[in-house]
């Protein structure tokens, strides 16, 4: 049986989609959480391909880069599309979610008020285009009452739920009230028993 070791900080961050997929698939893994000090010591040990976390160890192999990890686990455990085109649609959706995340993170971590306001204003102009585009893609998939792509849960849905879950991390105006299908998708996926159970039992962290 494959041995999985996931290493990240003690937060949801970029590791959570992996933890969510393992929870749904019922896969055992080591959920290693490093403190800042531990990471400072580990970082340049040569174990981490780009001196970053998360990494996923799969038996003797090491995969770095969060999205490479998501895609790999998705394919191994049934969260990928059924063909190349469905996977391309998933990639498109998750790439946009990444664009959104980068801007959200930028706002969240900026200390200088003036710059933070500028970043937030920039986010507010882009969000309607991105969320509007995602709402439309969801509706294009059989009316939007199922999942983003195809007939089943994929890592696009997982990533979406994870990102919209960082609720005390949202600048104002990023709730989903104007995007009813996205909002319903988020609630539907978060309520899946294995996901609800993991959300209940996981370590509680800010982000």
């Amino acid at each position, binding site marked *: 049986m494959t041995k999985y070791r996931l290493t990240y900080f003690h937060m949801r961050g970029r590791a959570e989609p992996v933890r969510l997929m393992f929870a749904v698939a019922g896969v055992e893994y080591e959920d290693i959480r490093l403190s800042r000090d531990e990471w400072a010591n580990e970082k340049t040990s040569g174990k981490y391909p780009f*001196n970053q976390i998360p990494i996923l160890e799969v038996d003797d192999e090491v995969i770095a880069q969060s999205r490479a990890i998501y*895609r790999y686990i998705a394919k191994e455990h049934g969260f990928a599309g059924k063909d190349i085109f469905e*996977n391309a649609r998933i990639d*498109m959706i998750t790439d946009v979610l990444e664009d959104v995340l980068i801007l959200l993170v930028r706002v969240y971590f900026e200390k200088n008020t003036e710059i933070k306001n500028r970043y937030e204003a920039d986010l507010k102009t882009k969000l309607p285009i991105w969320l509007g585009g995602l709402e439309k893609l969801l509706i294009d998939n059989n009316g939007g009452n199922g999942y983003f792509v195809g007939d089943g849960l994929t890592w696009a849905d997982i990533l979406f739920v994870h990102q919209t879950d960082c609720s005390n991390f949202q600048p104002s105006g990023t709730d989903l009230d104007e995007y009813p299908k996205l909002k319903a998708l988020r609630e539907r996926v978060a309520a899946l028993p294995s996901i609800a159970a993991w959300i209940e039992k996981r370590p509680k962290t800010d982000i």
Partner: protein
Amino acid sequence: MAKYQLSYFNIKGIAEPIRMLFAVAGVEYEDIRIQPEQWPSEKASGKYPFGSMPILVYGDIKIAQSFAITRYLANEFGLNGKTNLEKANVDMIADALKDIGEKIGKLFQEQDETKKAEKLAEIKRTDVPTYFGALEGILKDNKGGDGYFVGDDLTWADLLFFSQSEYYPMMLNEDVLISYPKMKALRDRINEHPRIKEWLEKRPKTEY
């Protein structure tokens, strides 16, 4: 029969690896280049799912996001490794190249000359060795590093690398690959690939 249509600006940018994929695979496509003055009305037309380019249209299929397009075509053309693990390694390398590419690109946009010089020195001291050192190591780990980044054949990670490397001398003021011999040799090898060579000769010449 449907024909692939790729739309982007008249630059190499993030579409160039896609154009190179078509070249290597020997697949015909429409290489649509939107002029800056056309873009506002194009964007407003609603044709672009997320208001940006590149997009790929193929019959009823429409895909946005450069890596989604590149990965899709690489999978279709057999240029994305053979196993899930190989594909994961391709993704990892591509994401890392994207990270360092963005850092370099951001630096290049700095207007203040003094700050730019400082940032350039900093990136050459920290990020370049971290990323390029790691990539050189990954390449060497692949059977000595005289082939490609992953597996036995060319993948889109190699093409992404080649395409990015075209910017390094301009943006970093030197050919940094001199310090990373296996990567330098890979770049030179791809440069000599007959279909890439043909594309390089016939493609529109643009600064970026």
